[in-house]
Structures are given as structure tokens and as C-alpha cells.
């Protein structure tokens, strides 16, 4: 009889356990999923160049149930300024961060700040490549492609061709790699790089005009979006001896300059994919506790010219935002 009572007791215990499980399930079934809060810190976040990137972030956030806050920023003076904003965001409860490092984290300030937070770096990994997950195009390849585009576009007058380079923020490793890629491609083939100016040296169009008067070149090369827009703006002011422009960029203004013929060739990274992939990577870390293991996702890019600007595939990369 005792044995029978034990069996009945066990059966009742199992049923009670099922009751608790079902009740818990019912109570929680209607609850909305929790959303992770992610802060995105990039240089000059309101710039048109980030439109596709933001589209990608938005798409990813929708799928991965995240709240993405693209922090409103202007151009950073240095990494410390960027880190202060990052610190503020972390204090405000950001559970993950996506950061475009505007300098090399030589003093480890950035690494220290995000040591406990899932982090994804875009565009520039700084000197901390092995520590963080990165989603970015291969900067060296971009520089090399720019060089190759120039070589093929100016094939008939390579000898003695004078090149001026707007190299952007050379505190960023990615920009240095672009420059290196470009220089190594050009260096073997005859053109002369007359000058290379970083954004610290050429902060606006007037400075460029001044410099231009001293040393004119046949071809301008811009290694980032801002430099391409700057160069485009500058070329439009010229009435004669307009230089050709080979640049990197993806803002509508940069595309417009390509469409107008101001830019001969534009290297456009697939920033929609970059934004989307950043969220996927962060979701992996937040939902599945993946380590910051230095995973690298390479973002592809394409070279756009006036001829293929309105091709279906190019349109999709250049204009992911429907206006």
C-alpha cells in the first residue's frame, strides 16, 4: 500500500510540476521580448554618407529585436572626445556598442571603456584588431582599387601624371592603409604623387584652393567620403584645368558628382551590409554570449563610373534608402 501511495504521490508531484510549468508559460507567453539597447558612435553621424549604414542598422535591429541609438555627433577632434561620448552612452545603459574609431587606441582608453560591453568596430579597427570584432571593408584593397581605377582611367597619360591625394584622417589606421594601398599600386607605374594632405592639413575648401594655387595636379584622389565631397566642391569652382577625381564615398553628393562627371570613378563600400552585419554580430554576443574573439567580417565594395551608375545592381548598393 505504501508503494501505491508513493506512485500516486509521484504522479501528483509530476502533475503539479506540469501545472507550474504551464502557468509560468502562460504568464510569460504574452510578454513582449526584451530589446537590447545598442549605441552607435560614428564620426559626424548626421552626414549623408551614413544613410546606407543606418538603413542596414535599422534592418538588422528589426530582425534582432534591438533598440539602436545612433548617437548624434559632429566631427571628432580626437579619440578622447569620442571616448567621452562612449562613456556617457555606457552610463546611460547601452548594452552593446558599434564604434568607428577615429584614432588609434594607443593608450588603451577605448579598450578599457568597452571591456565589459559587447563591441563591434566598423571601418577602422585601430591598433586593437585582435581584441574586437570588426565589420569593415579591406582598407588596403580600397586604396589599391582606387589606384587601379586611376591607372586604367589615365592609361594614356600615365607618364608624368601629377597626383594630389586628400588622405583624410591619417590618425585612423584604415586611412593609412588606404593610402598605403594606393601608393603601392601607383608607385610602380610612373605617375608622380605631388602631395598628400590629411584632413588636419586641409580642413576646408579655402585651404585647398590656397594649396592648389601653389601645386596644381592632373588628378585628385580622395580617400574618404568627406574628402571626395570636398574635392568635388573644389573642382566645380574651377573654370579651367579641372583635375580628374578618383575617390571613395557613398553619399548622394558624391554620387551626384559622379553623375555630373566631376568624379571619374567612385569606390563605394556596401555600407548597408556593414550596418546589418554589425547588428548580427552584436546579437550573437548579446543573445548567445559569444566572446569578443576578433572575428572579422569583410565588407565588399564596388567601383562605380558614369557608365554603370544606373545599372540595377549598382542602384541597389548606391540607393538602398527609398526616397
Amino acid at each position, binding site marked *: *500500500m505504501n508503494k*501505491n501511495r508513493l506512485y*500516486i504521490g509521484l*504522479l*501528483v508531484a509530476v*502533475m*503539479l510540476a*506540469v*501545472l507550474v*510549468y*504551464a*502557468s509560468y*508559460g*502562460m504568464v510569460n*507567453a*504574452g510578454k513582449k521580448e526584451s530589446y537590447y539597447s545598442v549605441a552607435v558612435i560614428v564620426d559626424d553621424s548626421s552626414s*549623408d554618407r551614413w544613410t546606407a549604414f543606418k*538603413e*542596414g542598422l535599422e*534592418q538588422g535591429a528589426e530582425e534582432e529585436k534591438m533598440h539602436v541609438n545612433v548617437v548624434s555627433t559632429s566631427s571628432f577632434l580626437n579619440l578622447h572626445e569620442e571616448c567621452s561620448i562612449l562613456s556617457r552612452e555606457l552610463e546611460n545603459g547601452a548594452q552593446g556598442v558599434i564604434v568607428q574609431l577615429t584614432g588609434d587606441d594607443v593608450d588603451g582608453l577605448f579598450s578599457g571603456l568597452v571591456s565589459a560591453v559587447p563591441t563591434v568596430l566598423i571601418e577602422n579597427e585601430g591598433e586593437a584588431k585582435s581584441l574586437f570584432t570588426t565589420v569593415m571593408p579591406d582598407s588596403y584593397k580600397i586604396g589599391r582599387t582606387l589606384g587601379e581605377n586611376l591607372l586604367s582611367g589615365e592609361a594614356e597619360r600615365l607618364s608624368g601624371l601629377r597626383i594630389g591625394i586628400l588622405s583624410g584622417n591619417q590618425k585612423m589606421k584604415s586611412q593609412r592603409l588606404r593610402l598605403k594601398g594606393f601608393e603601392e599600386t601607383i608607385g610602380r607605374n610612373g605617375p608622380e604623387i605631388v602631395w598628400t594632405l590629411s584632413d588636419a592639413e586641409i580642413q576646408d575648401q579655402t585651404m585647398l584652393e590656397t594649396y592648389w594655387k601653389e601645386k596644381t595636379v592632373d588628378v585628385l584622389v580622395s580617400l574618404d567620403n568627406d574628402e571626395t565631397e570636398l574635392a568635388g566642391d573644389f573642382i566645380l569652382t574651377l573654370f579651367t584645368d579641372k583635375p580628374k577625381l578618383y575617390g571613395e564615398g557613398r*553619399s*548622394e*553628393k558624391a*554620387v*551626384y558628382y559622379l*553623375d*555630373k562627371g566631376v568624379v571619374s570613378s567612385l569606390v563605394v563600400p*556596401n555600407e*548597408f*551590409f556593414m550596418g*546589418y552585419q554589425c547588428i548580427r554580430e552584436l546579437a550573437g554576443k548579446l543573445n548567445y554570449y559569444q566572446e569578443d574573439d576578433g572575428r572579422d567580417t569583410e565588407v565588399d565594395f564596388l567601383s562605380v563610373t558614369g557608365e554603370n551608375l*544606373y545599372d*540595377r545592381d549598382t*542602384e*541597389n*548598393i*548606391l*540607393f*538602398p534608402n*527609398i*526616397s
Partner: protein
Amino acid sequence: MQHTDPKSIQLTISVSFTITSVCIMCFLGVLLYQQFARKTETLYAENSEQLLNQTAISLEDYLRNMRRISDAMYYSVIKDKDLAIDGLDEEMDLLYEANKDNLISIACYAGDGKLVAAAPIANVKAGVSVLGQEWFQDAVSQLENFHFSIPHVQNLFDDPSYRYHWVVSLSRSVELTNNGDTMQGVLLVDMNYSSIKQLLEKANQDISKEYIYLMDRNGEIIYHPKQNLIRTGLLSEDNREASGYEDDTIRERFMGEKRMVTVKTISYTGWKLVSIVPMETFSMGMEETRYLVILLVTLALLATVVLNQLVSARIAKPLKKLNDSVKEWESGNLNPDIYVGGSLEVVHLGKTLQSTVSQIHQLMKDIVTEQEEKRKSELDALQSQINPHFLYNTLDSIVWMITGERYKEAVFMTTQLGSLFRVSLSRGKTIISIEDEIRHAKNYMGIQKIRYKNAFQVIFQVEPEVEQCCTVKLVLQPLLENAIYYGMEYMDGEGEILVKGYKKDGDIYLEVEDNGLGMPEEEAARLLTEKPRERKRGSGVGLINVDSRIRLRFGKEYGLIIESHPDEGMKVTIHIPAIPYTEENQQLLEEGKYKVKKQEEKL
């Protein structure tokens, strides 16, 4: 067949009811859930179709409006104007202004690709030729139709604010009049793609995984909620396959996912609106119901199990108590307290058992009494075998005979006495043949006749058939003794005792009849019911004793029958069954097993 230990009634009831309840509850639960699931699926399908139809109506409205703009421009403006005299700009601007929320531009081109008019007024991009653009080629190749392009970035006008627009181009061939001559042209209405997008985004606002997308007749995607992912190759859609579907709901498996696809064709354009409902959506929507069903079924099961326990205990408890009573009885308590209670059937069972126990108890008491009586009777019989008084008188008579030199008579009497004792002893047997019993009676009567100097006569009329049957020994002698002492004593030589033995209706009757004084019927009847009175004389074995011994041995239907009338004499009849005198029958009767054997033979 495997032997299983018997289980308690409570366990059997409880387990069988619990198993049945669990099976029924689980079956009902599954049935209920499936019913819910089916209804939900139907509801989802209906909602999805309804949403698709509403979206299709809105989209058709929008496209019809666009066609109306084109018609208005063509039939009300272009057909009425001679381009050499009037321009189209004013009317075109009016139309554009009235519909600018949905339009990017309206433009009219001549057959050679030269712009005739456009609204809003804008600079034509340098170096752009419309001749190579798809919308222009479609309009020129199929003159009668409207042509809707797939979304593309407009490449016609220069926008100094660096803006690019996604448009869906509605183009048609038109006849332009210039200086009285007609020529072919193309009217282009560039619809703002974002209007279509907004319209479809409304339909996709639901956060569930259900969505609607739009494609043209060739399967080219016009709108998809994850269009950018598809464009960048991060996601795929089976739009090519779906473009072949007729307007219907189809269940398909795509990329390992089961889903319900509903297709609705948009009139005139050939575009197709496709609603995708992943089957996973149903199960997600059913999550709460699933938990509810589990909760209800488990609660019902729990209640059933508890109820089963209570009911089975209620049924089993009285039976258990009854069983305990039986166990007590089995353990040796011959008068146990039998439990009577519980349900009607158990009460009946208890009462029956109580009655049975009581009857058995009474029967056992009766058996003990009977056994005691039997023993006493047999003791009496033994005592009767040696009646000192009878022996003394007989031996005294023999002495007197010898003294009187009546040797012959003395020898006869001695011989009779010896024979009498031989039969009386019968080697300790109780059952003897009627022949021996008659012999014993004759010996006894021989002695008595000498003692009473032949004052009476004895006649034996016994059928030979009867002599070979069994009887209890010494049943006739007491009867004869009674006949002598109560019947013959005052007869003076005229007394007569008739001993008859015959068979009738399968039974044997031995009669001892005298012609003595007799007695009243009432007194004769009392001879077998009242206790033996004080013995006066005789063997000391009364009629009651004989009657009791016969009934004990052969059953209550047998015994003595006394018939007597005053001055007419008395007849005492012994009624016994006709049992052939064999060694086996004799043995069985001795051991009291004869009746049992006969009953077994009958069965």
C-alpha cells in the same frame, strides 16, 4: 499465462480509473488543441486574404489614379494641342501640382527622345538619352498599352540638391500634333515609389512574421519588406516561383520553412501581390492556447486522480472491513463481529455473511449436541447388553431348572442366552443384518417364554428379502420387552406377540404387535416425545432410545411409529431404509458416511 499477484480492490479501481482518465484527458486535450490550431490557421488564412485584398484594392486605386492622370494628360491636353501653337507646360504643371504627393514628374517626349514638356520644370541631365531607357522602348514597341516599369532610380533630370528618386514609370505611346502633322511621342508619368512603399508598409505593420510583397508579372520584386537584404543577397525569396502561381492560396516549403502563400493579381498591370504566412506564425500564436490546454488537462487530471482516490477508497473501505471480518473468522473466532455497512451490495453481502456465520455456528452446536446424544445412546445400548437384572433372573431360572432336573429346558435356555449375548456383542458392531437382529429377538423371546411359562405366543413373519438388509442392532428387543411387560403380563396364556418384517415402497418395516391392554392414543404419542419415565422393569432401553438411535443413523425421516388403542393392543413399527447388508454398506453406516456417499452418487 503469467501469474500475477491479486491486487487490492482500491488499487485496481484507482489505477484503472486513472489510466482511463489520463487517456481520455490526453485525447481530449490533443483534440481540443488541434481544433484550436485548425481554427487559428483558418482565421489566419482568412485575415491574410482579407489584408491582401484590401491592399490590392488600395494599390489598384493608386494605379488607376495614375492611369487617370495619364489619360487626362493625353486625352484632355495632348490630343487637343498643336505643339507648334500651344505648349503643354501649363496643364502639365496643373496636373502635377494636383497629384505631386504621388508623383515625381510628368514628361512628354517626342519619338526621337527630345523632351517636349515636363513638370516640374527641371534641367534635363546632360548626355542622357531616353531612347535607351526601358520605359521608352516599351511604350514605342507596344503602342496601345500602358506600361508600368519596375522601380528604378530616375535618370532624367538634374537635381542640384543631390537628390535621387526611386520611381515606377508609367509610359504610353501618344500622338503628338505639330503644325497639323501627327507624330509619335511618349508620355511618361513617374510615380513616386515611396507612395507604393508606404501603402505596402501599412500592410506589413504587423510585427508577426507574416508579410506581403509585390512583384511584376516576370517575378521582379517591386516591393518587399526586406528588399535591401534581398538586393544584397542576404536573403532570398521565391518570387520567380510565385510568379507562376495563379490567384490562390498555396502551401509550400521554401528554404526549409513551411509557409502559406496567397497570390492576388493586380488588374491591368499584371503585378502580383503575394502574402506569405509562415506556418511557424500559427504555432507562435497558439503558444498561449497550448499552455492553457496543458493547464486545463493537467488540472482535470489532478482532480480526477484525487477523486479516483476518494471514490476508490469509499468503495473499497467497506469491502476491506468485511474482508477483515472474514479474516477474523478464518483465524478461529467462530462468532466474529461481521461488518455490515457501505453500499447496498456490500450491506447485503455483510448481512448474508452474518447470517451464514450464525447458521454455521448453530449447525455446529447442533452437531455437537447430536454427537453427544449419539454417544449417550450408544452407551445406553452397551449398557443394555449387560442388564444384570435380566441376567440374574435368567440364570436363576436356569438354576431352578437344573435343580428340578429339567435339564433339557436348562440346556435350551442356556443355549438361547449364549446366542443372545453373541448377537448382542456382534464383535462391537452397531450395524448388523436384520437376520441377526431377528435371531437375537428370537433368543430373547425364547428365554422370556420359559420364564413366563409360555404365557404368550410369539410369531415371527419376516420376509427373507428383508433379512439381508442392515439395521441398528438391538432395536427389536426393547420393543419386545415393552410388549411383554406392558402387554403380556396379565394375559393368562392368551397373549400373542406378532413380529413382522416386510418391505414397502423401498423401505423396511419391522412391526412388533401385541394384543395386550394397549393404551390411549395420546399416551402412546407421548412415548416418543417425553423423557423416559422411571423404569419399572425390562431391559432399561426405552422406545425413545431406539427411536433416537434409528434417526441418528438413518435420518430424521426414519424411526418408530406407535399405534395403540385401549384393550386392543399396541403396535410399534420400526421404519428404516432398505440397505443391503454388505461389508461395504455396513462399514459406511458404522462410520456415518453412507448418506454422504449416496448424495455424491446422486450428483
